[in-house]
C-alpha cells in the first residue's frame, strides 16, 4: 500500500485539472489550449492510477493506457486541424475564430 494514502494524489490531480481548465478557458493560443487539455487528461490519469493503487485493481492502469492512446490520437488530429486553420487564417488566436456568432 501506499504510505501516504490516496488523498494527496487526488488533491494533486484536482489542482492540475483545475489549472488545465483555467488554461483552456483563459489562453487564446489554440495550441496552448490544447496543451491545457493534455494537462487535464493527465491529471485524470493520475487520479486513475492512484485509485488503482489503492484498490489494487490493475483495471485502472488499463484505463490510463487507453486514455493515453486516445489523447495521442486526439492531439494528432487536433494539431492537424490547427495547422489547417492557420493556413486559412494565418492566425491561431481563438478569439478570431468566431464565424459562429449569433
Amino acid at each position, binding site marked *: 500500500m501506499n504510505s501516504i494514502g490516496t488523498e494527496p494524489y487526488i488533491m494533486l490531480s484536482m489542482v492540475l485539472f483545475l489549472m488545465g481548465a483555467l488554461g483552456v478557458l483563459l489562453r*487564446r493560443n489554440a495550441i496552448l489550449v490544447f496543451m491545457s487539455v493534455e494537462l487535464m487528461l493527465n491529471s485524470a490519469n493520475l487520479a486513475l492510477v492512484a485509485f488503482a493503487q489503492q484498490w489494487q485493481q490493475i483495471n485502472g492502469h488499463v484505463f490510463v493506457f487507453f486514455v493515453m492512446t486516445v489523447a495521442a490520437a486526439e492531439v494528432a488530429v487536433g494539431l492537424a486541424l490547427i495547422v489547417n486553420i492557420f493556413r486559412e487564417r494565418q492566425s491561431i488566436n481563438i478569439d478570431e475564430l468566431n464565424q459562429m456568432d449569433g
Partner: protein
Amino acid sequence: MEWLFLVVSFIAVVSAGMMLTRQNAVHSALFLIVNFGCVAFLYLMLDAPFLAMVQVAVYAGAIMVLFLFVIMLLGAEVTTDTSGQMRWASLVGAGVATLILIIFGFPIASGLLNNDGLEAYRGSAFVRVINAVPSGELALTTTFDALEDGVDNVTLENVEYNDERESVTSYLTLPAGEYTVTVTSEDGSEILYNESMILETKVSQSIIAYSNADNGVDVVTVADDLSPTDMGTMRLTLFNTVADTSVSLVDLGQYSTIRTLCENATCSTLIPHRVLIDELPVAETTSIDFDEGTYNIAFVDENNDVLRTLQDFDADRGAVETRVFVLEPGVDGAQAVHRAAVFSAVASPSFGSPEAIGQVLFIDYLLPVQLVGILLLVALIGVIVLARPDALAQAERRRVNRRRRVSRPLVSVLSQQTGADVLSGEYQAKLTEGSDDDPQAK
C-alpha cells in the same frame, strides 16, 4: 516518502503554472514536459512502473514533440497580447478555481473520504480442486453451490489423480462469496465433502482430496499463496497427506541418492543437509522460497529416512509450486511409493508490472484494445488528410510553371456556374488547376 511526494508534486504544480503563463508557446511546451515527467515519477511512486514509462514515452516523448513541431511549424511561439475583453477573466477564473478546489478538496484532504462505509469490492475468487488420492481410481466431481442469488452454480468434473505436471488444475474463477462445496465421487455415490466455504476476493484456494489413514478420502481446503514471489525466488508449498508421518524437506546439496540421513546406524550424525521444512505433520501445509537454482531435495521422515528424493530440482524464478506428498499404493503388489505430486500454479504478476497490465489488457480488454488500434489508425489517416499541403499554395507554384490547360469555353461555363469571374485572380488559378487535380475539400 511524503517529502518525496511533496517535492514532486510541487514541481508538477509549478511547472503547470509556468506552462499556463508563458507567452512563448515553446516554453509552455517544455514546462509541460516537465510536468509530465513529474507525473511519471508519481506513477512510479504509485506502483505503476509500466505506466510511468509509457507516460514518458508517449506523452512526453511523442505528444509533446508533436506539439513542438507544430508550434515551430506555425511559428506561433509568440502570441499576441490578451485582448481587453477577457482581462478580468483570469482573475475570476483563478478565484473560481480556488473555490472549487476548496469545495472539493476540503473533504478529501481532511480525510473524511474514508472507505469504511464503502461496500467491499467484490471481485473474483480462485479455487481449484486437487485430487491427491493416489489410487488413481477416484475421480472427483465438485459442485460449487452459490448461496447468493444471481450467482450460478459451477460443477467441476472428473478431476483425477495425476502426478505429472498435467494434473494441475487451473483455477476456477468464481465471484467471491459464500458457497456450499460438495465433493463427490464421480458417480456421485459418495459424498466426500459438503461444507460451506467463503471464497474471498482475489484469494486462491485449493481443495485437496487425499486418502487418509483409514483408506478413506479426506478433503481439506488450503489457501494458496500466488502473490508475486520475491525477486528471483520460487515458492514451494508442501502439503503432507501421508498418514502418521511428519515429513521434512531437506536440501541435500550434492547428495542425490541416499536413503537416510543418518550416517551411522545409530543416527548419531547426519549427513550434512539443509533443512528446508521441518516435520510437517499430516494434513498440514507450509511454504518455502527457493532462490533460483538447482537443488537436490529430499523428503525425510522423523526417523531421518529419506522417503523421496527430487534430483535436480529446478527452482525457476517467479514460479509457484504446490506439492502434495502422497503415498501411492503399489500396483499389482508393488510396494507403495512416496510421491510428491506436483500441482503448480502461476504466480500472479506483481501489481503494476507489464505482465499484469498485459494480462488484463489482452485477456479482458482485448476488444477495446483493438478498437483503440482502429482509432489510432483512423486518426493517422485523418491527420494525413488534414495536414496535406494546401492545394492553393501548390496551385500557385504550379501555375507559375505550367500553361493553362483549360479551354476558354469551359472557363466561361465554370465561371457561370460559380458566379465568379473565373478569369481573374486566384479563382482562375484555382479552377484551372482544380480541373487537373483531384477534388479537394475546401
